[in-house]
């Protein structure tokens, strides 16, 4: 299972990197979203995908899944969700203001 997940993470990273390197701003943002999904999966996979019980300590606590990576992922997902939302708004606003979403054309001179 870990190997399959690693391959998925690799594919997500490839796609994300490709998208970030394109010119269009929208694709770049989607690329960062894909990248962060890749890294969240990596976070989950890295701790080992155990098939233990839910992490509730009780009378019969046997093997249980490590809860920490899930807590970390939860935090990281919330953060990346917020940042992506902000990035979309920023991109929309700059598209309105600058009239283009092409990163090549955004290179202007410094004196405006």
């Amino acid at each position, binding site marked *: 299972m870990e190997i399959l997940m690693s391959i998925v993470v690799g594919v997500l990273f490839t796609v994300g990197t490709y998208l970030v390197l394109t010119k269009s701003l929208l694709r770049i943002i989607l690329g960062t979203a894909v*990248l962060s999904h890749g*890294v969240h999966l990596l*976070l989950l996979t890295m701790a080992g995908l155990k098939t233990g019980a839910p992490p509730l300590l009780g009378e019969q606590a046997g093997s249980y899944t490590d809860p920490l990576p899930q807590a970390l992922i939860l935090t990281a997902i919330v*953060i990346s969700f917020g940042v992506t939302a902000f990035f979309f708004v920023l991109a929309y606003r*700059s598209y309105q203001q600058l009239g283009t979403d092409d990163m090549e054309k955004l290179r202007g001179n410094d004196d*405006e």
Partner: protein
Amino acid sequence: MNNVVILPVVIPLITGIVLILAKKNLNLQRSLSVLSFAALIVAAGRLVHLAATEGIQTLYLGSWVPPFGIVLVADMFASLLVLTAGIVSLACLLYSFSAIDKDRESYFYYPLVQFIVAGVCGSFLTGDIFNLFVFFEVMLIASYALISLGGEKRQLRESLKYVLVNIISSVMFVMAVAYLYATLGTLNMADLSLRVAAVGQEGIVTVIAILFMIVFSLKSALFLYYWLPGSYSAPPAPIAALFGGLLTKVGIYALFRSFTLIFYHQPEVTHQLLAWLAGLTMVLGVLGAVAHWDVRKILAYNIVVAVGFIVFGLAVSSSTALSGAIYYLLHDMIIKALLFLLGGSMIAVAGTGQLRKMGGLIKRYPVLGWMFFIGALALAGIPPLSGFIGKLLLIQGGLEQGLYWLVAVSLGTSLLVLYSMLKIFMNGFWGEEKNHQAQGNGSITRHLVPCGFLVALAVGLGLGAEWVIPYIQIATETLLNPELYIQAVLKE
């Protein structure tokens, strides 16, 4: 266990939330912000005092004993940085009362400043590497909003790059944390340090260390600084000063923490790499500073140079060099904020940031001119101002360890830094007045109060080195002996 440790995080956070509710009332927002930072400075002063008298202070959040819960740790290094950050942000806040336009002010400028400071103080105080990431994000999201606040074309264009670079470095940060957790099974810094010491820093751990180095280099503009000059010169002066004074320093702090506490077992790989990066950063940064003719660009490139200097101390990692690096770090936070504020005033009175279009400002604004002159000398490290002692210790440490090429590079760089600052001084303040300067807004008297305060601090830090050095030595001792930190966090 000491509850004062959390105050530098909680005070700005709560004030920020309250300020959002008081959106309409600008006067209330201003006075509350000042009160909040004053309280922050008092709390940080208390922390410095406690760290000096009673040793490292810790707070286990929710009483979860480490390594399971999140722990806040205030050793001398972190406390000094929190104190300086409080002072710098108070000065930037006072400056922005007269320098920020009404539009920005009423669109949550003050709450955002509070959040940025909360994030910065949190990053300094946390003892858990994932929590460090969270506080980084608190600080970065506030900075994204601040850098694009106002929505000028130039700001939007630069903030796109800034946001993109930081998102990618955050992704890499989480990646490094994932690998670290997989390899060592803990995220508490003290516990990490113990486990790395136990298993030895070989193969994969060194790779993770280098991944962390890349992440923190991106955040602190060590070698990977290409996003910095554009983004830091786009927003108005008080915001740029806040960024220049605080944000890159957090990355430097993270580098110091991770490479003195956790990954210090293979200096021939990691610290060698840091030495090369520091050297390259200094050279490339100073070339940028010398080449540009825009006040803001020159100042922004000087941030890059200073990052190189400070990391030079980390790369050497001897007691003298680390003291020098800490001293220089504190000096740099103050002086960078000061220079950005003064540069902002210059641009306000001249109506342009281009040096070729301004001149003769000293006739009408002598106080501004002389303050800038003192700031420039302090930045270049002329005795007896604050930059000198830090540089002296750094160079002494470098010579002791036989890193002659790095010392030569840093000395040459210092000369060029002085040249770049005097270029601003000679072209901006001397010479003939240009006609179109009348366009500029003439009233900057209120700007000069916070600047004067920072100048006094820079001079005081140089002349009063005797009183500061003992604190810095305590900080250096903790950095050199990770056991002290581990003991304080894991045993109580």
